[in-house]
């Protein structure tokens, strides 16, 4: 308890309620809420991450095999369209992970749960990498098809803005020393920035853009041959599971760093050091 509450003016009533909350949680150890405690989530994340990583590896191998050897040549674009199998999953993940970050930001602001903010931190670098991959593969795809690496149309510009929002989040949370303040400032940026995500998604419907419309959407049949569609979805699931695995591993290191003053982290670090020594 000591040290954790520093800076919060712990009035007796407040401290009492805090204590009651902890006791209530201890009385109901089967509740899923117990995983909101970093100490409980740390081992769970450690157990889950390898499974997601293994799933991601298998799906990536299957997806890449289908992408290069099974999916047929496109009638319009020839072989170059195959970059879609990386481009679209990356773009989807970059948008989705930003929404997840905003979700954890809201949860953190409302429930004051430290772990929610840590989850947002853990997701940001992965989302930024997906966003970069989407922009980069898009440029490489645009040159041979459209005839240009880059244009300032609504889709490309709003996706670039998403890249800046990710970088802004990373810079902001690292520029503020006090983790409580850094968490909350970053969460606000994530929440406000999430307005950009529907703009990216619908930009190709709302405005004339050079970027084509969506091939896959919930409201109508996909305009892709089935093999191509299945390959793209497998790659998308691989991207999902990779992101989950990496975020879980990253949140574990964040937990260790943030909770380093506690006894259980000291014990865990001793255990890890002993294992390293062999």
């Amino acid at each position, binding site marked *: 308890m000591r040290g954790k509450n520093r800076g919060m003016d712990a009035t007796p009533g407040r401290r009492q309620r805090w204590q009651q909350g902890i006791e209530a949680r201890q009385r109901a150890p089967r509740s899923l809420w117990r995983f909101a405690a970093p100490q409980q989530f740390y081992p769970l994340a450690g157990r889950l991450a390898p499974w997601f990583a293994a799933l991601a590896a298998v799906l990536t191998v299957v997806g890449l095999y289908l992408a290069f050897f099974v999916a*047929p*040549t*496109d*009638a*319009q*674009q020839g072989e170059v*369209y195959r970059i*879609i199998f990386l481009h679209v999953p990356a773009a989807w993940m970059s948008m989705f992970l930003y929404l997840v970050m905003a979700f954890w930001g*809201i949860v953190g*602001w*409302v*429930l004051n749960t430290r772990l929610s903010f840590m989850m947002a931190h853990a997701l940001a670098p992965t989302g930024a990498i997906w966003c970069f991959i989407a922009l980069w593969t898009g440029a490489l795809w645009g040159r*041979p*098809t*459209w*005839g*240009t690496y880059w*244009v*300032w*149309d*609504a889709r490309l510009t709003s996706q670039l803005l998403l890249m800046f929002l990710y970088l802004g989040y990373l810079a902001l949370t690292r520029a503020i020393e006090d983790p409580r303040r850094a968490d909350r400032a970053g969460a606000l940026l994530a*929440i*406000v920035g*999430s*307005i950009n995500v529907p*703009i990216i998604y619908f930009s190709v419907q*709302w*405005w*004339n*853009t*050079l970027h*084509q*419309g*969506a*091939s896959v959407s919930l409201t109508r049949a996909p*305009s*892709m*041959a089935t093999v*191509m569609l299945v390959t793209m979805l497998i790659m998308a699931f691989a991207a999902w599971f990779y992101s989950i695995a990496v975020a879980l591993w990253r949140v574990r290191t964040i937990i260790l760093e943030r909770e380093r003053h506690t006894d259980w982290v000291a014990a865990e670090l001793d255990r890890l050091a002993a294992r390293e020594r062999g």
Partner: protein
Amino acid sequence: MTARGKRLTLILAALALLGGATALVLSAMRENLVFFHTPSEVAEGKAPVGRTFRIGGMVAEGSLERLPDGVTVRFAVTDTAKTIPVVYRGALPDLFSEGKGAVAQGQLGPDGVFVASEVLAKHDENYMPVEAQHAVDQAQRAASTLEP
């Protein structure tokens, strides 16, 4: 209302306000956010004629011709309602062809010919194998011969 409920309401209300404000700004800037204008919009005077702008549409069937100098091409951009003739000196993108989408940047001359400085190909969101495209083309040809 609990403190939690208040915080949640506050965040959701702020988000709704911000979303509304963004929607208003975007709809106000609607004209400036389009990447290109269609030939119909140019005919209605909605395009910034006199300045550099972009037109987009289909390359009209049978309109593409190369001039004897080898680098100048002429074609027409159509949205089926209106058509604008375009002249362009330079290399065309690989996907540029008649019946496909294209976007041209340049200026509209007094003679109504659009002088392009850059031409981009715009492809659609349909992906299919060559055989499937062939079958679609055949079906369309068969359907067109049936018309009276």
